[in-house]
């Protein structure tokens, strides 16, 4: 019996944490209770990307796009939509300050997106291999094994022009070709799923929503380079992704799409999962392989490159999740098709995790060459609360901040590097006027201090030095010579560090120094933090002319340092104040001043 309706419930980590699983179970129970179980297929899919408004429930074929759904809404969705054919209007996505209900294709969030990597996310049930197969899944593997020689596969990637999506942008075909040509009887294929940038979750969502796309691509890679063994190195902090990956591997093995003699072709390939403990440095390929071998995760000098001597000193191909997810599509639709998307030097699309001070935070996939302005203001819907845009932090702790004047440059590997940032894995954190440039660079440096493996001196000592200087400035004790020191140490680290962790750790500091130098100067010369983020520099006081003595601030103050009689102006005891800003936030009369 064919289904008349489909209810797709987002099963990404974001929506799961706001009870998507309960919504799913309630929908199943209601469909059963109301006797429409045979009419509607209820599917838990991967991430829709529109995480800001989750949990998301989409009903097809009416294309009803429900946002912020609660488990208790399940009954109404079934009784109204499935039984009576009426949309549940109150749950439909509405644009802010606008009463019109918006159809999926009209939601600006989706208009400028182009989905290759996320093609199946939010469409199929990631725990059902048959749904993947029905969406042309394993057709690329079929084509590779039966119609193409390994050289042809690599040639197709060359035509496509795919570049590594982990951040550095190395041509993928070249990596595959080098590993293929490397001497050795045993070779390995590794998928780097050790996504560690703060605020980045593209790879997690890809695996959660479409695990088979990665497995299929790894198998193709195995065929192309002459390897029979693959590893997915994924951080243990991604339990849902690991679970779905395990299910996917088991299903592929049962159906003969992994294992010995795949589809009767005579080609054997097996994939194992290896869990990382979540060290940032293990995203660096040589450290990752050390960890995979069971050693302490520390980088080793390159060359030799992994393609020549990698895992257990064997030639090893290592790509990240997003790079692999592109491969099956390139083989089925052709390299030429792919090369026409995006820009000439950076073909294809890129997935970004959009977070921070933005209205529509979520997962977006756009063709390369899209401008940052389009991502932030069209897709992202602009800054929260109408505040002023300050900058976009791309590339995580290795990247830099791109400010207003550069918003119109198209996103490519080269352009971001030219702007003092980098593509990185795709985290994009939007900053507004309430964010302080010094504080942001101090935050990233703190992260790098924690995550530096300590093997090489430039990184180990450099990150610590930079962090202590930045802390000093944020406390109002900075001197003018500190700025030169930041630059000098930063540049030395960039040149001398063993791996890219140290080599790029200074980027956030150097780029803020370049673009927001005036803020550093304010901190040092005027002891002022205009955003009010550097607590040591902020003083809260109450304007007696404006205070009506309602006492709200005094009740909210966690350290009881605000005193005053009823209906009389209150006073803040600055010596006790912990500068949490709670009084500033709750005052309805703008009587609390922040300086």
């Amino acid at each position, binding site marked *: 019996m064919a289904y*008349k309706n*489909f209810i*797709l419930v987002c099963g990404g980590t974001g929506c799961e944490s706001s009870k998507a699983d309960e919504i799913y179970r309630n929908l199943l129970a209601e469909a059963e209770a109301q006797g429409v179980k045979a009419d509607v297929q209820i599917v838990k899919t991967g991430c829709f990307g529109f995480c800001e408004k989750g949990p998301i429930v989409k009903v097809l074929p009416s294309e009803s796009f429900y946002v912020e759904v609660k488990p208790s809404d399940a009954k109404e969705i079934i009784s109204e939509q499935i039984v*009576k054919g009426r949309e549940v209007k109150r749950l439909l996505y509405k644009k802010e300050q606008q009463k019109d209900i918006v159809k999926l294709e009209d939601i600006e969030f989706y208009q400028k997106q182009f989905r290759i990597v996320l093609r199946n996310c939010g469409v199929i049930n990631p725990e059902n291999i048959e749904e993947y197969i*029905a969406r042309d899944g394993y*057709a690329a593997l*079929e084509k590779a094994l039966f119609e193409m020689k390994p050289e042809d596969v690599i040639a197709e990637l060359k035509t496509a022009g795919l570049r590594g999506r982990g951040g550095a942008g190395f041509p993928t075909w070249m990596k595959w070709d080098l590993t293929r040509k490397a001497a050795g009887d045993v070779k390995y294929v590794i998928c780097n799923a050790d996504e560690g940038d703060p605020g980045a979750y593209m790879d997690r969502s890809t695996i959660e929503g479409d695990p088979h796309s990665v497995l299929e691509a790894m198998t193709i890679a195995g065929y192309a380079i002459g390897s029979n063994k693959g590893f997915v190195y994924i951080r243990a902090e991604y339990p849902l992704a690991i679970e779905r990956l395990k299910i996917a591997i088991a299903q592929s093995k*049962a159906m003969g799409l992994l294992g010995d003699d795949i589809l*009767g072709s005579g080609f054997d390939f097996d994939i194992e999962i290896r869990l990382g403990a979540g060290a940032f440095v293990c995203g660096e390929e040589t450290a990752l392989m050390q960890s995979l071998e069971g050693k302490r995760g520390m980088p080793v000098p390159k060359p030799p490159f992994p393609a020549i001597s990698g895992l257990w000193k064997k030639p090893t191909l290592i790509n990240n999740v997003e790079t692999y997810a592109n491969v099956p599509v390139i083989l089925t639709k052709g390299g030429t098709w792919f090369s026409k998307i995006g820009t000439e030097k950076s073909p294809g699309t890129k997935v970004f995790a959009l977070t921070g001070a933005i209205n529509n935070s979520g997962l977006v996939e756009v063709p390369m060459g899209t401008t940052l302005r389009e991502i932030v203001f069209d897709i992202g819907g602009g800054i929260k609360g109408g505040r002023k845009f300050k900058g976009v932090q791309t590339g995580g702790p290795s990247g830099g901040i791109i400010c207003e004047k550069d918003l119109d440059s198209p996103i490519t590997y080269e352009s971001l590097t030219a702007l003092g940032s980098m593509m990185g894995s795709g985290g994009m954190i939007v900053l507004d006027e309430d964010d302080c440039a010094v504080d942001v660079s101090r935050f990233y440096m703190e992260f790098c201090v924690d995550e530096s493996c300590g093997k090489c001196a430039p990184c180990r000592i450099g990150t610590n030095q930079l962090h202590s200087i930045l802390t000093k400035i944020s406390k109002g004790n900075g001197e003018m010579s500190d700025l030169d020191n930041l630059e000098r140490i930063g540049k030395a680290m960039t040149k001398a560090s063993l791996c890219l962790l140290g080599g790029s750790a200074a980027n956030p500091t150097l780029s803020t120094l370049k673009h927001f130098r005036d803020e550093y100067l304010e901190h040092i010369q005027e002891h002022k933090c205009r955003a009010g983020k550097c607590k040591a520099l902020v003083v809260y006081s109450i304007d007696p002319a404006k205070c009506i003595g309602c006492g709200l601030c005094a009740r909210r103050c966690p350290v009881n340092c605000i005193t005053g009689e009823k209906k009389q102006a209150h006073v803040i005891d600055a010596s006790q104040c912990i500068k949490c800003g709670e009084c500033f936030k709750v005052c309805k009369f703008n009587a609390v001043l922040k300086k």
Partner: protein
Amino acid sequence: MAKMTLEDLRKLRDERKKDLNRRDVEGKNVQIIVGMGTCGIAAGAKSTFDAILAAVDEFHLDKDVVIRQTGCMGLCYVEPTVEVAMPGMPATIYGKVDAAVAREIVQKHVVEKTLVENHIFDRPAADIIQK
């Protein structure tokens, strides 16, 4: 499930494609909308819907057709109602559509691009309907 051969994989893909095509709405330009308000359901819209599903499969239209349901169209006296919107044909609302007529609509209106006379209740101008 046992290990598959190449043929098995292709067969499975074709079988399941229909299901998933139905879930996908992108690129489909024929819309068939069945009125499934209380009046429609009472008049037998459910079997109409099933018949359309079956006909769409029968004529291999699953890549082109979206079948939706909607509430009462206000034509309760001729329920079940079916609206068809597609390029090259006037948007048409058919009434009194039972399972047999439903199949006829898919065959004539969608495939052969001719109107199904006697069941038209709205839209096309009087002069293009041949009595």
